[in-house]
């Protein structure tokens, strides 16, 4: 089946068609117009010599719009802010930064850290179990402080529409400036004690001195002045390209693959209320992201001690112990599971949903099997459900060279 293509050519770009497409996430015409005008204003700024930092310099060449291919059945509305349109140059720069350990602001081999230190492609951008640095899958930052939670994957984040992180702290609704969009993760990670624990000014100053980088910033954002803000924009652009839509199940949806009997039976269990009843929170039919991106207490505990759950963001007691339901794509590469990594294997996760649920006042009403502590599938049914979950494995995603570490950095180092 043909993939729905979002073709961005320069000509269309000027006609505004594609631009308004990228602006579709904005509710209503006014929002879209504002978005469109943002694009135009941004474009003009790029084109206007007077707006550049160094007046004498020639205007930067226009960056090339980046084409996002939307897999079939995926949402059409993309989460791309008006002031950070996708460009080939931005994505290229973002990929370098994602993998460049000097993002720590330091250059000694033992004090390097970047996004890829923890977000590893082979694990769908989690750190996985068994990494020599983080053997149990719980990452810690440069100064040895453990992150508050275990990893989240980076899969299809261009369709995140209810905030980032396990608790959704980074969201447009957050009243704090700088804690709203994917772009903001850069300064957050650089300063967070459990991640880089560094200094944004120092990081920007270091990249200003690395040969090759200033020119890339100029190409992407019209100025060779390196800022953490533009680092965040580039990183966000790269992360928005990390799209997974070619698992066996996707091919089944496109009519290119026949599910095995076990996968099919697991699929039915996944999608039925009196079966496993997973779809109300994790999507499935009609929602190939395999997440609603919403927050639920899925019945793991009756006593809650994590100060970073959803309630910490909403202040609503009914969000006690609630976390984002993550996508179920590529689970095969993503152990350990849950925000606290409590389950080391998928079998443990399934055993939990099958018979270990515990009630608490804030449990999601969608966990309607709570009265019997679980969905109580038979062992063969559990193994079918697992087979279905594994049909969401997209190996092309974890081996896609476009997402991998560049062979060398702009200054020629590796």
């Amino acid at each position, binding site marked *: 089946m043909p993939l729905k293509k979002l073709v961005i050519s320069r000509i269309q770009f000027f006609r505004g068609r594609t631009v308004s497409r990228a602006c579709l996430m904005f509710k209503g015409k006014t929002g879209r117009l504002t978005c469109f005008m943002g694009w135009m204003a941004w474009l*003009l700024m790029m084109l206007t010599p007077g707006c550049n930092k160094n007046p004498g310099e020639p205007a930067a060449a226009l960056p090339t719009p980046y084409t996002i291919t939307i897999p079939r059945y995926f949402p059409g*509305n993309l989460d791309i802010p008006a002031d950070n349109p996708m460009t080939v140059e931005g994505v290229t720069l973002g990929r370098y930064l994602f993998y460049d350990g000097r993002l720590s602001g330091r250059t000694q081999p033992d004090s390097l850290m970047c996004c890829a230190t923890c977000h590893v492609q082979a694990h769908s951008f989690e750190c996985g179990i068994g990494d020599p640095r983080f053997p149990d899958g719980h990452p810690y930052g440069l100064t040895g402080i453990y992150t508050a939670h275990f990893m989240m994957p980076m899969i299809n984040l261009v369709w995140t529409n209810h905030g980032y992180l396990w608790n959704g702290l980074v969201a447009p609704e957050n009243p704090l400036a700088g804690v709203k969009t994917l772009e903001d993760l850069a300064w957050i990670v650089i300063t967070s004690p459990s991640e880089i624990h560094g200094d944004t000014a120092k990081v920007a100053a270091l990249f200003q001195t690395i040969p090759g980088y200033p020119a890339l910033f100029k190409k992407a954002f019209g100025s060779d002045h390196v800022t953490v803000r533009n680092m965040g924009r580039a990183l966000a652009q790269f992360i928005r390209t990390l799209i997974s839509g070619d698992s066996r199940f996707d091919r089944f949806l496109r009519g290119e693959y026949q599910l095995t009997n076990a996968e099919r039976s697991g699929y039915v269990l996944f999608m039925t209320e009196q079966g496993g009843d997973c779809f109300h929170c994790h999507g499935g039919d009609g929602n190939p992201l395999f997440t609603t991106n919403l927050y639920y207490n899925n019945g793991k505990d009756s006593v809650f001690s994590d100060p970073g759950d959803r309630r910490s963001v909403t202040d609503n007691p009914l969000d006690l112990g609630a976390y984002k339901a993550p996508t179920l794509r590529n689970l095969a590469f993503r152990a350990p599971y849950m925000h606290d990594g409590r389950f080391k294997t998928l079998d443990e996760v399934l055993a939990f949903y099958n018979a270990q649920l515990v009630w608490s006042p804030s449990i999601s009403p969608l966990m309607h099997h709570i009265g019997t502590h679980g969905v109580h599938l038979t062992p063969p049914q559990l193994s079918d459900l697992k087979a279905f979950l594994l049909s969401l494995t997209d190996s092309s995603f974890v081996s896609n060279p476009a997402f991998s570490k560049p062979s060398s950095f702009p200054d020629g180092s590796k």
Partner: protein
Amino acid sequence: MKNLCCLAVFLAMFAGCEKKPDTVYHGYGKLQIAFHHAAEGNPLQFDTMIYHSAAMYNYKVADLQYIISGVTLYRNGGEFVLPGTGGGIHYVDARIPSTRLWVTDQSIAPGTFDSLSFTFGLNAAENLSNRFPDPPLRDMAWPDILGGGYHYMKMNLVYGNSSGTVIEPFMFHLGIGQLYSSSLPNPDSITGYVQNFFRVTLLKRFIIAGSRINTINCTMQVDHWFDGPESFNFDDYPGGIMQSQPGMQKACANGRKAFSGTISN
């Protein structure tokens, strides 16, 4: 300077296209529908265990999301279907104020109408899988194996019996029903599907006034879903009714009586 002028022209050009609230009526009436939710005679209060069903359960409402479509005004035997936004399909999340007001674009010749009705949910022709890839409608998707399309309604409840020994969630979800050849709702034994959408006549004999916005107030009495004419017994179902056609049928029989309307103009 030249560039600045360009920018100004650009901005002016697009500001000009921006939709203004339409104040020019040319004598026509405009229509908006405001959705209200009540229980036991008062505005619905979420998350509080204060309601009692006819079958003697205490319950509280945690979520209430539903779709209405095909709003139609009838006059002199003719009918006028409201296309409105989204092809005449409106999604209400009772917790989200912006979804509780549907401002339609229609200009309607003023006068007296015989009735106004809508479809609760989506009719068979409208209820197609993968039609709405974006939230919030996306998250209403109904499993294909259970008939596909979209939930007409998701009402999530927590109920307790009168002795307080049972406190359990109940997923009062409506959509396409299934017929099973087995006694248990085993998806392998599905022999057919049942359309459960229904039409609601909200208003009879009403006037649309010209040169102004007419507001239709549509109120859902939430408790009516569990009370007359059929008494709905939560314990008869395993925490939900998506796979119980008798349950959904009973619910829909009650639901037909759950809506009431007024118009202010």
